[in-house]
């Protein structure tokens, strides 16, 4: 199973992000990784959490619009050239990256890159072929 990401629609209103963090805190949900995409008028908060279903239900019950998407987690060495080694594979395979974000697991040891590809299956195939290590969803959610 791939990593499941929750995307949340956000109006550009002050305090809106804090409403979500308060809700997740109250529900005892742990955030693994996050990224915030913004335009002049609205934003999309993307989260990877330990309990996706619980988070989705809590958000929905509180009136947020959410969507769940499969994304790919890739393991990389936390050192210069780490990101590049992956992106060269992506480039060679002509994969379209919709967006990506990254976090490190124990600084200096392990980096994790989260990719949203247009074509998930093709991406998995190409990355495997290029010798890239794809992390199973369970591992990322349960880190």
């Amino acid at each position, binding site marked *: 199973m791939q990593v499941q990401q929750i995307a949340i629609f956000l*109006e550009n209103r002050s305090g809106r992000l804090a409403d979500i963090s308060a809700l997740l805190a109250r529900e005892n949900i742990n955030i693994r990784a996050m990224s915030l995409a913004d335009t002049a008028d609205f934003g999309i908060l993307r989260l990877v959490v330990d309990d996706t279903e619980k988070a989705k239900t809590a958000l929905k019950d509180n009136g947020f*619009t959410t969507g769940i998407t499969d994304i790919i987690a890739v393991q990389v060495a936390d050192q210069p050239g780490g990101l590049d080694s992956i992106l060269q594979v992506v480039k060679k395979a002509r994969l379209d990256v919709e967006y990506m974000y990254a976090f490190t697991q124990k600084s200096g040891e392990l980096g994790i890159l989260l990719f949203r590809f247009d074509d998930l299956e093709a991406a998995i195939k190409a990355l495997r072929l290029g010798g890239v290590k794809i992390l199973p969803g369970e591992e990322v959610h349960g880190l």
Partner: protein
Amino acid sequence: MMWNEKEETMPRSELQALQLKRLQALVERVYAKVPYYCQKMKDAGVTPGDIKELADIKRLPFTTKEDLRKNYPFGLFTVSMDEVVRVHASSGTTGKPTVVGYTRADIKLWAGLMARTLSAAGATSKDIIQNAYGYGLFTGGLGAHYGAEELGAAVVPVSGGQTKRQITLMRDFGSTVLLSTPSYALNIAEVMADMGVNPADLPLRVGVFGAEPWSENMRAELENKLQVKAIDIYGLSEVIGPGVATECIEAQHGLHIFEDHFLPEIVDPDTFEPLPVGDRGELVFTTLTKEAFPVIRYRTKDIASLNDEPCACGRTFMRIPKITGRTDDMLIIRGVNVFPSQIEQVLMNVEGVEPHYQIIVDRQGSMDTMEVQVEVSETVFSDKIKNLEKLNKRIQGDIKDLIGSSCKISLVEPKTIRRSEGKAQRVIDKRPKK
């Protein structure tokens, strides 16, 4: 189904003879009883004796909302308050409220017309009718109530609001007919879904929706979400309230005007000359039988046309198309006429977009701006910015194609647009008043 088949299927020649007789009596009565009308007729150089055929109506002066305001509150009543048994009034948001009065006979007439309306929607004495129009000064609540009682149905007079209780009662009582504004019906459907109530499990089968203009797309939405046949009814308090015109369930195509009591005309909105059947213009009504507060050539500001083609239901009354906008609701944005219902039509053509919207009009410098707020539902939401921007551009493009004027689309979080419990407030106009 017909409440009074003889009256509703009267041959047109007979109907016209009846209209003329009633019109002549009306003109004589107001000339004698209401100094304001008398003076207006004198100014126009016309006397009751000049009305020899129906076409002579064009010699009579129009009545407008302004005339009603000038005579606030009871100046245009033809009877003393002793004979008046009820008054209703408009909300008066745009000035002094307009006040209308009814004698006992008027109330009886009105109940009969609403019974006709409900029958046309397929309701009978066996139905349980949930009346969610607001009770009070607004004509909708009591007007529909008396009609449903006249019909012999079991009336549940819940009025508007308290939506959860509304749905609980609907389920427990097994209501078969819902009377409400279309925007409130939509609110009910949404709360029903939140409560986990499936409309297909309810005996509800017909919705009679009026007091607001609504689009064909809204009909599809309401019929689908509430699992009912949606019937449009038309009326305005100055004429009598609801019960002026109604769709029939047989055709659901155009609203039959109860012409034996309300004489319709279509006039050119610029020259005010009467237009022939089929032409579009402003809808004008003369009440033929009302006692306390008759109106002569009342300008409704609604744009319509008359259709005299025979209808599947057998009624001989002419039809007007669904009214999609009152000129009062019309916005003028940078010189372009825009009806909120046009925006509604566009939004509801976009799959997944919820029919909740708000239009905010403002002015920056000397330039009018229009913003349309649209709620982002799960169906249209995407984790990709570009998809939401595509949605935004599509709505913007469709609106521009339809009205020829550009506007800003704001995507907002669900349920942030205020839900209607009666008449929806679709437009917030922040422009400074002249």
